[in-house]
């Protein structure tokens, strides 16, 4: 072999080795280079706020979580003592398993069950297993920006179908008269989390808050009702109703969209008009869950189409229980109407009357007790979850989620831009998106 050939082989060999070495080194080098060195205030102790805090803690960033109510959780909650199993008062289904929450389930060995139960429909005063006409009209491209109710009428469905359409809208936390057929379809095109709905043998609340809430509990200040965020100087000043003042380099706001819409928090200077307009274009309606316990089970797993409550679900699915608990899952105008009764007993009576009509009086005869969770009346929530409202546009959520002056950041389910709004994993995705944004700020 000539000298030049030997030299070439040697060079080529060393080059290949160097290439291999460099690529291997990069393997775990990732983006852990910390740039941001300031402190962060997170407003809101729901799933997004708690996960953002957890990430900041892992990154070694100083942070405080200001929670307006007296406990962490936001729209997740847990009720014990009502039945022989713990109840999820708020979010209770994991929608799809291809998500960060699906990974939590695996990592923490949570026991979940697929909820694929059949429905009965209350249609023209009769409980029937299938509807005369399909209501599967919303999963199509090119739908107009009409409400679910208007579009259903346009497609020739009779008014008898409106309670059924109401239950479809209720899945989105909305009223059928306000939920946009077009934007629901458009935003769902990014959905990437899989199809099944899963329930937790214990609670969804525990999955999130016993693991991540516990890690940040020392950084959470409860009963801190933020009324002003002043970002006019280098440091952002956050003031609460009780006169406390906090100062931070960055503020991550994870409160529900209703709180941003209602100007409970004053911004100094005021937020850009396009941003407040975007807030107003996102829908969030009333939401209520009423848990009703009966001595015997007389109901189907899902009862769809009530005029008082469009959707009742058997809460025992996926639970280790001998109790018979039915949830009245009330959304939109139906929830507003019940909430306006201003009495848990009146709400329960209205629901029992409807169930009695459906089941020949068995509801009242076997009724043991009920628990009403009215999210419209929760002072720091005031609704169910965000929905795609008639009149919004494709940039609405993106504008709402834009950071302001590189110091105000926006998270929470309503700020999810990848089709996962209304979900816990969607809220968590905004938490890490915003924390990554903060970390990139010098």
């Amino acid at each position, binding site marked *: 072999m000539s000298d030049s050939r030997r030299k070439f082989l040697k060079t080529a060999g060393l080059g290949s080795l160097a290439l291999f070495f460099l690529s291997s080194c990069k393997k775990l080098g990732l983006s852990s280079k910390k740039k941001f060195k300031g402190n962060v205030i997170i407003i809101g102790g729901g799933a997004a706020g708690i996960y953002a805090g957890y990430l900041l803690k892992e990154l070694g960033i100083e942070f405080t979580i200001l929670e307006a109510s007296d406990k962490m959780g936001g729209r997740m909650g847990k009720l014990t003592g009502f039945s022989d199993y713990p109840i999820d008062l708020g979010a209770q289904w994991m929608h799809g398993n291809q998500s*960060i929450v699906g990974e939590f389930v695996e990592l923490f060995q949570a026991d979940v069950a697929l909820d694929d139960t059949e429905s009965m429909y209350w249609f023209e005063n009769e409980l029937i297993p299938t509807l005369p006409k399909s209501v599967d009209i919303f999963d199509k491209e090119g739908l107009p920006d009409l409400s679910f109710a208007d579009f259903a009428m346009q497609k020739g469905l009779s008014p008898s179908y409106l309670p059924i359409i109401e239950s479809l809208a209720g899945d989105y936390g909305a009223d059928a008269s306000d939920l946009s057929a077009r934007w629901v379809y458009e935003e769902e095109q990014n959905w990437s989390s899989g199809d099944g709905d899963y329930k937790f043998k214990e609670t969804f609340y525990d999955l999130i808050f016993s693991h991540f809430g516990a890690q940040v509990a020392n950084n959470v200040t409860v009963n801190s009702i933020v009324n002003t965020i002043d970002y006019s100087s280098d440091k952002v000043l956050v003031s609460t109703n009780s006169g406390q003042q906090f100062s931070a380099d960055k503020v991550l706001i994870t409160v529900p969209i209703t709180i941003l819409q209602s100007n409970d928090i004053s911004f100094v200077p005021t937020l850009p008009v396009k941003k407040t307009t975007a807030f107003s274009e996102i829908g969030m309606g009333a939401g209520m869950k009423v848990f009703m316990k009966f001595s015997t089970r007389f109901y189907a797993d899902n009862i769809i189409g009530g005029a008082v409550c469009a959707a009742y679900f058997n809460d025992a699915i996926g639970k280790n229980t001998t109790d018979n608990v039915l949830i009245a899952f009330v959304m939109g105008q139906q929830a507003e109407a019940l909430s306006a009764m201003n009495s848990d007993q009146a709400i329960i009576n209205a629901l029992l009357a409807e169930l009695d009509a459906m089941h020949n009086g068995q509801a009242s005869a076997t009724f043991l007790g009920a628990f009403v969770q009215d999210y419209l009346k929760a002072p720091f929530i005031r609704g169910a979850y965000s929905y795609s409202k008639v009149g919004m546009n494709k940039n609405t959520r993106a504008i709402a989620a834009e950071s302001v002056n590189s110091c105000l950041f926006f998270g929470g389910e309503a700020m999810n831009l990848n089709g996962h709004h209304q979900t816990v994993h969607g809220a968590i995705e905004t938490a890490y998106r915003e924390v990554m944004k903060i970390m990139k700020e010098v």
Partner: protein
Amino acid sequence: MKNRCFFVLSCFFISAYASAQNYRIGLGYSFLNNSQWNQTIQLYNDSRPFLEEKQPLLQNGFFLSFDRMLKIENKHPFALSLAYSFFNSKADNVVYVSKINLHTLSFSFNSTKYYLIHKNTPLTFSFGAGMLSNYLERRINPNATINEDYPIRSLGFGPLLNLNFSYDITLNKGVKITPFVQVSFAPYYYSPGAEKCLNLTQGMMEESWNNTLNIQAGLRFSCIK
């Protein structure tokens, strides 16, 4: 998987042996750089500090290539090249194993041999163009509580440009071994479902279009009759 690799490898060897003067086979190390995919995996890791074992970047793999040498009368000779590469990334956590497999297949037309220094020196270069496609899948441990919707799969494709440097070494009995380095670039590579595999989201990262750079270093074998 091992059986599949063995089958592909056997096919290459058999076909090369059958008509060795017209075919050559190659194999070696393959380095991939798709910055957007890397960023997505980085985001995945950064957002999940609870994972002790991080998801490695999709960078190191191997390739097999199969070239058919052609010469049309009075025209410059060229080669039709079919190349398969495999990359994987495994985060092997105690109760949660996440594995991403990337299979790529390229088909390209490559010029043969331009002498780098002067004619009849063994150091040559060639260039080519073609198409690159990929199949990306994410799997989780089979005994996972909820694995009904797995694996998650996505496809991608785009144009491909190749630049190849090689050094011919003729051994006894007419066997030629050619160490080579090939740089391939796939601009405007379209992989809309990659983010779903890599971060379980869609639309959080910026573009479905990206660029892919691939550097291969290995050996080609051919017989001279």
